[in-house]
């Protein structure tokens, strides 16, 4: 086969250009699973895509988002259970973001996380544009109601109870808004609410990670699971609000625990590598490859949304 075609016939004998994107990017030993397990189909046309990549350049603010199916789901041919959503508010003043991580034990949690993320962003838009307050309870309830509606509709069960919908579609949720213009003192405001074990970190221009969301209890190993199904939808969710002032040169990352767990408290080699890769916004395709980094033993779905605030014009740049 001759070389690449650019709007016309290929020059005969032109060399074939190898694709520059590697099959995976590794942090440390990728393990056998990264080399041997590739994307797969889940046996239904309405299954979510294996990988989604999104991005937006909004002046001083740049957004990249990605959700990547984990190796376990690829190998088992089961659905990616993470979902992401991003939009600008209808008044153009806010970047609205959501990440939702469907629980492994809930058979249809991909649908739960998808309904939660998209509804949360829509509800948050209503709050920031039409109301003067960020009513997180209202936003989370809207997400729960959307999951319940979906469960009832898809199972033709108009009287399904919320507990049953949760057993089928349970999901965590991290939703938030970041101002597209500085709010105070040159800082952009970031306001978030968390239900479950997603997390948010800030990356400063010196490449240091700062946890923004409350740290997970127990750090993962041997965490006791409760008897009931956690996550949304539920009538009485435990919502943890938090906010951060984002300086020019900072970047904020929302992530599911597939990224948050290996990142830890921001001091290990995964954190160090991501800090180098994300010192400035990569192309959306590259961000997706990086969020899905290969590392032996880490096989969960991965999702992350990165929001960079450009350094101030007077900064010398570089840390």
């Amino acid at each position, binding site marked *: 086969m001759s070389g690449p075609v650019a709007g016309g016939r290929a020059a005969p004998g032109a060399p074939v250009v190898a694709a520059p994107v590697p099959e995976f990017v590794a942090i440390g*030993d990728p393990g056998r699973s990264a080399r041997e397990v590739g994307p797969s189909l889940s046996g239904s046309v309405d299954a979510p895509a294996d990988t989604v990549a999104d991005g937006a350049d909004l002046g001083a603010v740049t957004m990249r988002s990605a959700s990547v199916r984990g190796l*376990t789901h690829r190998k088992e041919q089961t659905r990616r259970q993470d979902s992401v959503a991003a939009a600008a508010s209808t008044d153009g003043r806010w970047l609205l973001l959501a990440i939702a991580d469907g629980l492994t034990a809930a058979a249809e949690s991909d649908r739960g996380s998808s309904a939660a993320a998209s509804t949360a962003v829509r509800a948050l838009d209503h709050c920031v544009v039409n109301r003067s307050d960020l009513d997180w309870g209202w936003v989370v309830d809207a997400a729960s109601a959307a999951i319940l509606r979906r469960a009832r509709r898809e199972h033709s069960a108009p009287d399904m109870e919320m507990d049953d919908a949760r057993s089928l579609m349970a999901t965590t949720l991290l939703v938030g808004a970041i101002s597209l213009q500085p709010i105070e003192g040159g800082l952009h405001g970031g306001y978030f609410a968390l239900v479950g*074990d997603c997390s948010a970190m800030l990356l400063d221009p010196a490449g240091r990670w700062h946890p923004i969301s409350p740290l997970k209890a127990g750090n993962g*190993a041997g965490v006791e699971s409760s008897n009931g199904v956690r996550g949304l939808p539920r009538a009485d969710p435990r919502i943890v609000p938090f906010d951060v002032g984002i300086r020019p040169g900072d970047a904020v990352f929302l992530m599911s625990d597939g990224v948050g767990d290996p990142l830890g408290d921001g001091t290990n080699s995964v954190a160090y590598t991501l800090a180098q890769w994300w010192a400035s916004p990569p192309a959306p395709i590259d961000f997706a490859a990086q969020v899905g980094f290969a590392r032996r*033993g880490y096989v969960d779905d991965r999702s992350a949304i990165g929001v960079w605030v450009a350094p101030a014009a007077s900064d010398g740049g570089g840390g």
Partner: protein
Amino acid sequence: MSDAPEEEFIVLPFYVVCDVSYSMAGQGILGLNQVLPVLRDQARQDPVLSDVVQLGLVTFNSTPTEVTQLGDIGEGPLPTLTASGGTEYGAVLRKIKQLIERDIPRLKAEAAARGERLRVYRPAVFFLSDGGPNDADWLTAFTELTAYDSKTEAGFKSYPLFVPMGLGGADESVLRQMIHPREHSRLFMVKDPHVDAAVAVTEMAKIMLGTILGSVQSAQAGGIHVFPEQKALPAGIVVYEYDGGNSV
């Protein structure tokens, strides 16, 4: 920062401990010799599993023998096992404790030599036996292996998840006491006396593999070891929780 920090990788250790006393002669030992290589091969075929699982094999009668050191799931042939001797639990239980004490630091040291740091999950022990122990004070050794008080740090901090599995003439009342931790582990018993010992051994190996697989997946979500439920087990094998109820 001049050097990248050491990388952290997850490891799940599993010890398979099998009774090779005289009562296992015939179908029992035949089954073990057939199924142990198959168990290893099937585990090794799963790339996600073989990236994180470390497997060790111990046999015992009145004394224990380490057949395969805890490590990556191996490929070479396993020695042919023979059945002989009496059944004592104390010696093998003490051996398991010694192995854990030796192996976990060894895995960490080997990893450190590669520039890696390991997060080692609590080791799990599958304990397969077809007869009651002849030693009366095995419980002392079992307590040394499993008792731990997190408040005072008294006992054995690296105590394993202990999963007793009984077939043939196994003493259910003894094995039931070996469910540890009580609120979490399980006992698997072959209840049908007519089940061929080779078949029973094969089914127990499947349960081991299913537990290993489920636990690897659970560990990804920050969870703990998980076991097959009763409905997933073949007829004739019952799974028990410590409180005496059947795990349905």
